[in-house]
């Protein structure tokens, strides 16, 4: 790669991050050292999602080869960054400053750094062993990225190219992100998907730690690092270059923003939560399920607390944030006649017999239990740690239980999908349940740490 190309790739990565960071600052006016990691990671998450959408929109509009795209997109990003910087300058006086509190015990901080380095080392080692990722990476996600990067106007042939079981209908966050990087780089190096995966992995860690630092303090934030990095298979999933890790990132971001709303109020976090939930839907079909269940859970919680008007208004703000990514996912689903094996299964009359089969339910429960055991080693201890009493402040605890509730609902939703699956259930579970649970785990960890008493 030439020096100029390297600069272009740097630009491709940095501009969305800067814009995302500024959007977060605009929508969620917190300042102070304790908020920096949260703003950076949340901004990066939202920014990368926007970049993916802009690339897909360009392709969908019949946009041609890289040079016009690079010029138009770079100009657009720079304008957006400048405009938001001007607004931010005016808004500075309205910011709420979060003062740093006393640091976490030094031993715990060092342990967290060790865990972070260990997780990164594990990711790099796995990536070096399989630079093209695992099967689904090249057969599904990066294949779609190649269609997007190489295909010019005919890129949508990708929806017909894959065999049915490789989910040709899946949304395009990951392929569009990788294809965009490839276009900036002027080639299709394995580094594109590898750097995307690594970036998502770090953003996830940063987001979890940053959110907990603001919401719960430095002990909880430091504790979350080994909790996340110790998660069985998380670094592997990242190195495999599958969409499960971006999904985990967006789900966690959405729930973290809602927790921030619980704590600090305001509409901004709601908009950001909606945007992240919409981006989850723009990443995988599981994200669509998550977005729907999140809205349902928010409504149910509002109804339970007897504040229906406020809840409806909050849901509207979330919908405003989700408009772009959800709209893109909807355009894709409606406009592209790609079949989905799992959705088509519901048209089969035999699905009701499968749903009512206790043996299938038992198999699913067993799989979830065994896969869950790999995740809960740190979680069980965390829960035990909190058994002394939930004396955390009620708003934060409520946010934690909300995260756990949404994660539980998603798990129930997955169980129903497995019950209805037309595939051999044992095969389906063995090839996907561990990934799904791992993707859900960071959101669960966020909820767990928020809910338990740390004092």
């Amino acid at each position, binding site marked *: 790669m030439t020096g100029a190309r390297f600069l272009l790739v740097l630009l491709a990565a940095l501009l969305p991050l800067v814009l995302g960071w500024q959007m977060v600052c605009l929508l969620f006016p917190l*300042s*102070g050292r*304790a908020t920096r990691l949260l703003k950076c990671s949340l901004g990066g998450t939202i920014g990368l999602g926007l970049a993916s959408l802009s690339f897909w929109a360009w392709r969908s509009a019949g946009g041609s080869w890289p040079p016009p795209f690079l010029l138009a997109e770079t100009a657009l990003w720079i304008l957006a960054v400048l405009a938001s910087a001007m607004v931010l300058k005016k808004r500075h006086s*309205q*910011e*709420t*400053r*979060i*003062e*740093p*509190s*006393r640091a*976490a015990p030094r031993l*715990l901080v060092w*342990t967290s750094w*060790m*865990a972070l380095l*260990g997780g990164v*080392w*594990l990711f790099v*080692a796995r990536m070096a*062993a*399989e630079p*093209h990722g*695992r099967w689904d990476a*090249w*057969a599904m996600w990066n*294949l779609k990225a190649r*269609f997007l990067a190489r*295909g*010019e106007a*005919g890129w949508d*042939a*990708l929806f*017909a*190219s894959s065999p049915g079981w490789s989910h040709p209908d899946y949304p395009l966050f990951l392929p569009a992100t990788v294809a965009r990087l490839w276009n900036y780089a002027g080639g299709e190096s394995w580094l594109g998907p590898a750097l995307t995966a690594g970036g998502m992995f770090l953003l996830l860690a940063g987001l979890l730690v940053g959110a907990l630092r*603001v*919401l*719960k*303090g*430095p*002990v*909880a934030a430091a*504790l979350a690092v*080994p*909790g996340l*990095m*110790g*998660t*069985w298979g998380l*670094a592997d999933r990242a190195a495999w270059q599958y969409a499960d890790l971006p999904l985990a990132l967006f789900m966690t971001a959405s729930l973290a923003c809602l927790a921030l709303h619980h704590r600090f109020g305001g509409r901004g976090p709601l908009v950001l939560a909606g945007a992240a939930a919409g981006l989850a839907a723009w990443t995988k079909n599981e994200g669509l399920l998550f977005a729907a269940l999140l809205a349902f859970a928010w409504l149910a919680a509002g109804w339970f607390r007897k504040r229906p008007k406020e809840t409806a208004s909050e849901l509207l703000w979330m919908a405003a944030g989700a408009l772009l990514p959800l709209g893109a996912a909807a355009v894709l689903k409606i406009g592209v006649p790609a079949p989905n094996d799992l959705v088509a299964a519901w048209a089969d009359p035999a699905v009701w017999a499968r749903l009512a089969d206790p043996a299938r339910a038992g198999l699913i429960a067993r799989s979830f239990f065994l896969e869950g055991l790999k995740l809960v*080693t*740190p979680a069980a*201890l*965390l829960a*035990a*740690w909190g058994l*002394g009493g939930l004396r955390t402040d009620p708003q934060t605890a409520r946010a934690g239980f909300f995260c756990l509730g949404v994660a539980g609902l998603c798990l129930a939703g997955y169980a129903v999908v497995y019950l209805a699956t037309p595939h051999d259930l044992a095969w389906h579970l063995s090839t996907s349940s561990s990934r799904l649970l791992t993707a859900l785990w960071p959101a669960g960890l966020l909820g767990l740490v928020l809910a338990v008493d*740390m*004092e």
Partner: protein
Amino acid sequence: MQRMSSPPASGVGPRRVLFLGATVLAALVSLALQITGAGQPPPPPPPTDIAAFEQRMAPLRALVGAGETVGYRTDPGPRNVRSVKEYMLTQYCLAPARVLEGTAPDRVVGNFHDLPPPEEEIAREGFTVEADFGNGVFLYRRAR
């Protein structure tokens, strides 16, 4: 500008130190087990074959147009993980062309390891060799 304090770090009392230590230890042990590979399933076959396969297919890419649909045939025999993988890798290499298993399209990619390929059978199906890349990769065209 409003000022708020982030939740304090204090209060890790002795009652909780044990749980804190155990939690962190459990997470670190989990991480260490993954790094050392303990309890992992056996690693998959060496993955470098993707790069090699791409190199093998590279000359073919120049002859297959974007958006074109080509067929695909390989060594006779039952489908196995390797044959499915190579079919899907062919699709990966030739995107944005579409690769369909079988010989329905007018141009067909041949990917053979047990040279020579079944030439008689291919000719019987009405195909002639359009390009032979000398490494078991062929492009066939339906004879008019």
